[in-house]
């Protein structure tokens, strides 16, 4: 029993998770920071037209799909909930 692993994730698992995010960004040519900015801008646009209050619940789901050389499609989903 590994007590260290009880409290935080093993570094191998951390590496695997980080790698998956990095590779998806690389293959999509779309970084997590970029998706953050896209999210921010979409909210700004919506705010121009909709009066977003607590009562109005808007949900936006944006799928960015890129076909890469391997013939596999990579999909990145940006979800903006509860504006």
């Amino acid at each position, binding site marked *: 029993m590994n007590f260290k692993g009880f409290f935080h994730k093993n570094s191998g698992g951390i*590496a695997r998770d980080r*790698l998956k995010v*990095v590779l998806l960004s*690389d293959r999509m040519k779309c970084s997590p920071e970029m998706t953050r900015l896209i999210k921010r801008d979409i909210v700004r646009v919506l705010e121009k037209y909709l009066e977003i209050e607590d009562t109005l619940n808007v949900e936006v789901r944006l799928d960015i799909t890129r076909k890469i050389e*391997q013939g596999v499609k990579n999909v990145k989903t940006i979800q903006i909930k509860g504006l």
Partner: protein
Amino acid sequence: MSEIIVVTSGKGGVGKTTAVANLGTGLAKLNKKAVLVDTDIGLRNLDVVMGLENRIVYNLIDVIEGNCRLKQSLIRDKRYPNLYLLPSAQTRDKTAVTPEQMIKLTEDLAEHFDYILLDCPAGIEQGFKNAVAGAGRAIVVTTPEVSAIRDADRIIGLLEANGLKKIDLLINRLRMDMIRRGDMMSMEDVVEILGINLIGAVPDDESVVISTNQGEPLAGNDTKAGQAYLNICRRIMGEAVPLLDLNKSSNILTKFTGLFKKN
């Protein structure tokens, strides 16, 4: 029928040159006629890993520029009658060669050898493009680290864009003790992430450092790494060889018996 295989990785220091030296040695031990071509112009290293550094007269650039005949430039490894090395030039840089010239060179070599192994330089620039140009098959070397795997993924994309169909993965420097603790990505993790065929895994073994120090590749020797490399050679030749159980090396008993065997 001969095969032209480029050994590449993107990232430096993951063991491309060591892999080429050992795969060449292993193939020669399995009675295949093999030539190792060092395409890392300006940063020649395959010769020292092979222990042939004192026998170089002509190099790759000499052949390409017509200063010597192809046969003159090939160094025969005296330990294995079927193994040859075409060393790189140390005084020039990657721009001294074009992809077209590399295609011509590998075609010429293909007439005389079963296997042509190309040791690719790190990076994705001219040197990589030259090395890949003539190849019909690729082995991507990586280690179980985030940076190396990221580069490997990029390289796989570039190889596919270059029209290479047969791309295999070699995972180097696996440490079973760390994987068991969960502090290193496992073979399965790496294969799942990169999504290409695994041709073999080589454990992180002191014997590899020792063999490089001595200039004697260890493929086929009685070490875990030596056996792993020989198995990879068999798979290159098309045999179905099951993966080596790397866990065995952690057994104290086998470690001890291994100690006595060496002496």
